[in-house]
């Protein structure tokens, strides 16, 4: 490992941490930048995989999908392939691969975490100090976005004014760009960088569950020619599975609506762009037509991770190499004035709004529960978790 450069070079990966090592002593253990990131994330594969702290529900999601697909492939597919067509397991296989790829991608991708403000930046916002006491900045700042007034809130944890559409996730303790919601089933926040993967995951999962459901019913029907339809049906918990599918399909429909109107779950829940708030209230981020909104959300350019989170970057808080000697400048009239805070509008505190829920109630991300395949008789109804309430 070689230390290749200074302030301007992002490619080196040896890190010395002057903030934590004792003065005059070199830090012994080289560290990556992501290891110094505050916040409650977990990193794997040298910072390339980034997830929330609580990943138990994510493993449950994996187990549920693998188990039900495994059972479908083992017990239903041989029958269906031989009696109907081998295209059925082939299509199910493709859908399954797509579901797994998008799930892993949604879970492991950095959602668009904003690095916290450096001490200098925070001090700049907080204004001139008096006797070592920092004045906290106003709670919010208003900006005009495409003609619509948007309030930017100050984040006390990250010590910066959040960009529009960003929100602070209290579970991961980070500000995330274009924050949608924190999904425990995926084990990560859903934000700017992984929203499309999340959407494609729930969409493909809807198709997969509907596909499996349809062919299990087909299997039941075909078998019922021998044993009688009602007796075959009563042995498979179709009714329970119908509600689960409804939840996933409903969630996909909800997110399709959000994408086509270019809103986040957060904004929709708070009713930020609803006309109930005001006659002239509109969504300033929407491109105007559904097709552009969809294309932008799903096929638009994907921003890379913020520089501070790349695994192969060097910590650049040490002073750079000496600058070339300054050419003669005209004499300075006066020492530079102290940094003044940017002009902020004094605003009354906004009435308490619904705080953005970092963790949505379960109904919005139900567990994937496709119907279990028809097992050979005698069949006892398998233990299933109670169906989640409808959206």
């Amino acid at each position, binding site marked *: 490992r070689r230390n290749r450069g200074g*302030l*301007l070079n*992002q490619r080196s990966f040896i890190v010395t941490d002057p903030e934590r090592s004792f003065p005059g002593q070199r830090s012994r253990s080289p560290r990556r930048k992501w290891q110094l990131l505050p916040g409650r994330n977990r990193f794997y594969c040298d910072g390339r995989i980034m997830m929330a702290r609580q990943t138990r529900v994510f493993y449950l999601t994996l187990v549920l999908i693998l188990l039900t697909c495994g059972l479908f492939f083992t017990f239903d597919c041989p029958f269906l392939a031989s009696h109907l067509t081998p295209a059925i397991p082939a299509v199910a296989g493709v859908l399954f*691969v*797509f579901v797994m*790829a*998008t799930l892993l*991608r949604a879970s492991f991708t950095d959602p668009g975490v*904003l*690095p916290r*403000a*450096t001490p*200098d*930046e925070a001090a*700049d916002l907080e204004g001139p100090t008096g006797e070592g006491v920092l004045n906290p900045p106003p709670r919010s700042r208003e*900006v*005009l*976005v*495409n003609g619509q007034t*948007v309030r*930017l809130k100050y984040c006390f944890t990250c010590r*910066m004014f959040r*960009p*529009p*559409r960003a929100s602070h996730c209290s579970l991961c303790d980070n500000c995330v*760009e*274009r924050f949608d919601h924190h999904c425990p089933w995926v084990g990560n926040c859903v934000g700017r960088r992984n929203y499309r*993967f999340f959407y*494609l995951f729930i969409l493909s999962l809807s198709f997969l569950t509907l596909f499996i459901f349809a062919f299990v019913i087909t299997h039941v029907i075909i078998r019922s020619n021998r044993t009688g339809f009602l007796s075959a049906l009563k042995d498979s918990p179709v009714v329970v599975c119908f509600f689960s599918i409804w939840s996933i399909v409903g969630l996909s429909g909800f997110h399709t609506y959000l994408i086509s109107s270019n809103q986040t779950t957060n904004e929709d829940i708070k009713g930020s762009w609803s006309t109930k708030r005001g006659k002239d209230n509109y969504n*300033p*981020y929407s491109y105007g037509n559904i097709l552009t909104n969809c*294309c*932008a959300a*799903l*096929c*638009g*350019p*994907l*921003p*890379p991770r*913020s*520089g*501070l989170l790349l695994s192969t970057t060097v910590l*650049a808080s040490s*002073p*750079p*190499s*000496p*600058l*070339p*000697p*300054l*050419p*003669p*400048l005209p004499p*300075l009239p006066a020492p*530079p*004035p102290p*940094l003044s805070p*940017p002009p902020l509008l004094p605003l009354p505190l906004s009435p308490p709004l619904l705080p953005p829920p970092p963790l949505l109630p379960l109904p919005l991300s139900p567990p994937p529960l496709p119907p279990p395949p028809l097992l050979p008789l005698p069949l006892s109804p398998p233990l299933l978790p109670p169906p989640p309430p409808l959206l």
Partner: protein
Amino acid sequence: LRPPAVSSKVFVQRDYGSGTISKFQTKFPSELESRLDKQQFDETIQTLNNLYAEAEKLGGKSYLEGCLACLTAYTIFLCMETHYEKVLKKISRYIKDQNEKIYAPRGLLLTDPIERGLRVVEITIYEDRSIGSGR
């Protein structure tokens, strides 16, 4: 020759007037008046804004890249760089170039905004030691 000390830092904030696209304010900070021409500062910021606009542009090319990526289950990015990443490299070369030619000779240093989550352009002002000391 000991490295110059940091005198202060200026933060050029984002301009959200056109939405969430990456764009920085072109308002000239008063702290730089003694060191830099307004026109040079303007040019730097405008070029950065144009480069970011190029990176985030929605159009046939970016849609094609997105669709291709989706069809290959995003594995194509294991061997290929995204358009955004290419432009970010271009931006970092531009900033290095500007620092060498314009900012460092004036005792200033631009920090690449990507290091700050594209929230600010941080300009470090180093103390000016040209007064009184011959060179």
